[in-house]
């Protein structure tokens, strides 16, 4: 089974600053999808950004962008101009179209935003 590793259990960032959350994954597949989800204290899982493995261009969504390094199997999330509302648990996830579209989640990174 694919594994997703988030090596930073906790991170903090000053409001308005930039922070990068790390994610690596292990797979032998060439075709897959990668996601970042945000789970605030309300516990609603919210999709932040998605990347298709066949796309070389890094996905961006407003203040959120990814650095997708396919050869290195790395998928980091950059949050620019951090806001207090960005405080949440962030989960990296891998999805394979070859294993019933099952999602594999990392263990999460808890992000604190300091005013």
């Amino acid at each position, binding site marked *: 089974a694919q594994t997703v590793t988030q090596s930073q259990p906790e991170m903090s960032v000053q409001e308005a600053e930039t922070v990068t959350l790390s994610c690596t994954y292990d797979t032998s597949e060439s075709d897959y999808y990668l*996601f970042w989800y945000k789970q605030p204290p309300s516990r*609603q*899982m919210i*999709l932040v950004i998605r990347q298709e493995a066949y796309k070389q261009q890094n996905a961006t969504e407003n203040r959120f962008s990814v650095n997708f390094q396919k050869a290195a199997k790395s998928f980091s999330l950059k949050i620019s101009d951090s806001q207090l509302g960005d405080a949440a648990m962030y989960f990296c996830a891998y999805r394979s179209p070859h294993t019933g*579209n099952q*999602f594999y*989640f990392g*263990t999460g990174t808890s992000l604190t935003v300091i005013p």
Partner: protein
Amino acid sequence: SAVISQKPSRDICQRGTSLTIQCQVDSQVTMMFWYRQQPGQSLTLIATANQGSEATYESGFVIDKFPISRPNLTFSTLTVSNMSPEDSSIYLCSVDAPLDEGSTDTQYFGPGTRLTVL
């Protein structure tokens, strides 16, 4: 996208009882998923529920403990049976839906049900 609601949002139950969690989606979807998230941990897939067929359970989860119904394309239930304190967790429903028109599916999550078993 998809909007998902779950009932109840939280419950406190006694050991040995059962609780049924409902998941309602605002559009017809083929695949629905049930996850468990234990305190401070990541999500673990319990089972995949397709309408008109038996749910497919992941390793470590069995139908007798977590029976699932999927009567139509917008609704599913998960029952946590004969509960013990170890079942205390957040249970999340999710569905596959297109992120935007013409794109491949992404997974959307309900708000979760926080279960505490005494």
